[in-house]
């Protein structure tokens, strides 16, 4: 069974400099949520660009559905129908002052009929929770809104794989929730998502798999396994996400991925403690437990 999108022995970089990526292997299965982690300048964006067909690697191959992609104009056009990338700064991608015109660029480029283009624009804006922005001027939007519009521009291509560079960077907590909700809707609609991020707690909670770029190579695996590897985490200039760090510090065998799982892992012990000590009976702030549903960063 072959991966939807894969890198085989990928090499990328500039002549006369240390290679940015050196024999990188990565396989992304259909419907996966993959978080790509790594330090600033480690090569995350380079890897995404290669996978998106925007940067030709100096060695190795990018494969889609088991076949290496063709780097000619036609091959790339075909590749971009399936694989779309959203950059970190929305101002690097939005060229039209009118939101719905901007989102329509991709579908128009595919040569679709105006009705079909219109339907796709609406669909993409709805998936991103940005219907109400359709009539607005790009320059009047907030940073978070512009991020969602830029993402809608990629979604309107109905890609199989959507790759996002730091989709939550610079957003306030509400903006992060909205972006995550939008990504969940895309996953439900069958899109495979690759997200490059610095937020290890987000990666642990959101991803099915993580890939860590470190020393020009990539380590791929289950989030709780890779992010518990203290040595890898340190070498990659990352941090252990708090749920794993907490569990480790408390000597728990559980590897919670988020607040709920941390609570579930700790509650039995505390329940017993409370029963014997009767301490938690009248705790101030215990009405705050509604917060459990909220995301914690």
């Amino acid at each position, binding site marked *: 069974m072959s991966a939807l999108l894969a890198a085989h022995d990928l090499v990328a970089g500039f002549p006369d400099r240390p290679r940015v990526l050196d024999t990188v292997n990565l396989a992304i299965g259909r419907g996966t949520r993959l978080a790509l982690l790594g330090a600033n300048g480690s090569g995350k964006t380079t890897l995404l*660009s290669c996978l*998106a067909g*925007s940067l030709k690697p100096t060695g190795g191959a990018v494969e889609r559905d088991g076949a290496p992609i063709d780097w000619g*104009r036609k091959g790339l*056009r075909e590749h*971009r129908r399936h694989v779309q*990338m959203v*950059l970190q*700064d929305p*101002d*690097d*991608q*939005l*060229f*039209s*002052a*009118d939101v*719905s*015109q*901007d989102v*329509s*660029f*991709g*579908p*128009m*480029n595919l040569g679709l009929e*105006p009705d079909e*283009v*219109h339907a796709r*624009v609406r669909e993409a804006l709805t998936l991103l929770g940005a219907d109400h922005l359709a*009539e*607005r*001027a*790009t*320059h*009047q939007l907030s940073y978070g809104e512009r991020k969602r519009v830029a993402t809608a*521009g*990629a979604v309107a*291509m109905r890609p199989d794989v959507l790759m996002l560079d730091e989709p939550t960077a610079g957003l306030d907590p509400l903006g992060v929730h909205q972006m995550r909700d939008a990504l969940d809707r895309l996953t439900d609609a069958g899109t495979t998502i690759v997200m490059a991020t610095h937020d290890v707690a987000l990666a642990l909670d959101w991803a099915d798999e993580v890939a860590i770029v470190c020393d020009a190579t990539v380590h791929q695996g289950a989030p709780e396994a890779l992010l518990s590897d203290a040595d890898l985490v340190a070498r990659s200039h990352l941090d252990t996400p708090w749920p794993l760090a907490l569990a480790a510090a408390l000597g728990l065998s559980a590897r919670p991925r988020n607040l709920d799982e941390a609570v579930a892992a700790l509650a039995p012990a505390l329940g017993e403690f409370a029963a014997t000590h009767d301490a938690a009976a009248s705790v101030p702030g215990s009405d705050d437990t509604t917060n459990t549903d909220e995301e914690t960063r």
Partner: protein
Amino acid sequence: MSGLHIGALDDAAWGSPWRRRRVGEKVACSMGLVLTALLAPTWPGTLLVAVAAIALIVGAARIRPRVLLAAMSAPIVFLILGAISVLFSVGTAPADAWWHAAFLSVGPTSVAQAARLFAHGLSGTLAVMVLATTTPMVDLLTWLRRFRVPDPLLEIASLTYRLLFVLAETTANVLAAQRCRLGDNPVGRWNGLSRRWHNTAAAVGAIGLRAWDRSSRLTEGLAHRGFETSLVTLPVPRVASPRLITATVVVLAAIWSISLVVAR
């Protein structure tokens, strides 16, 4: 706060209740008034055009009077300066001069000229504001496509418009950052004039480099989006408004007939 300055008319245009009307109708209305301001007998033609334009902008298109006033302040200064310089003739005073001193004089010809300059200028500018306050630049550019203006030219114009706001933010930030470190207010002779010059050059240079960087990043971003040869987008559907067309025709006809009757 340069960003704010660019914003006022543009914000009004984007928020205008006329936003979704056909661009051609708005252009016809505005340009009809402009031509009337220029061609109809000055009195009362220009006055009527000014009144009609204000009524359309503030009344029908519901633009806040303050926005219009702020937009008009710069052209009014220019018109006053121009009118003053026309008001005084230089050289030998004409025989019909009402007042003269040394080589300056004011007479019926120069007064009429000054009044004409001011009246035409004010009414003409107000007539252009009918378009400026109701139609965002992108809409105009998209509309120009039907006149077979080559796509690359329109694309450059609309990219210019988009980048204007991105770079306005950069400009505001660079200037604010310099102010924080006393870039506009250094210690030194004549309020640090020579350093201020160097700082301004550094600011302009930094903005230029940032602009260059921005444009190459947008180029790359567009390549990611599959840009090859053209930036074609879906035109926005527009609503025909028979009422605006009728109003335009009626108003213009009324102004012309009143002006012609009165001028006779």
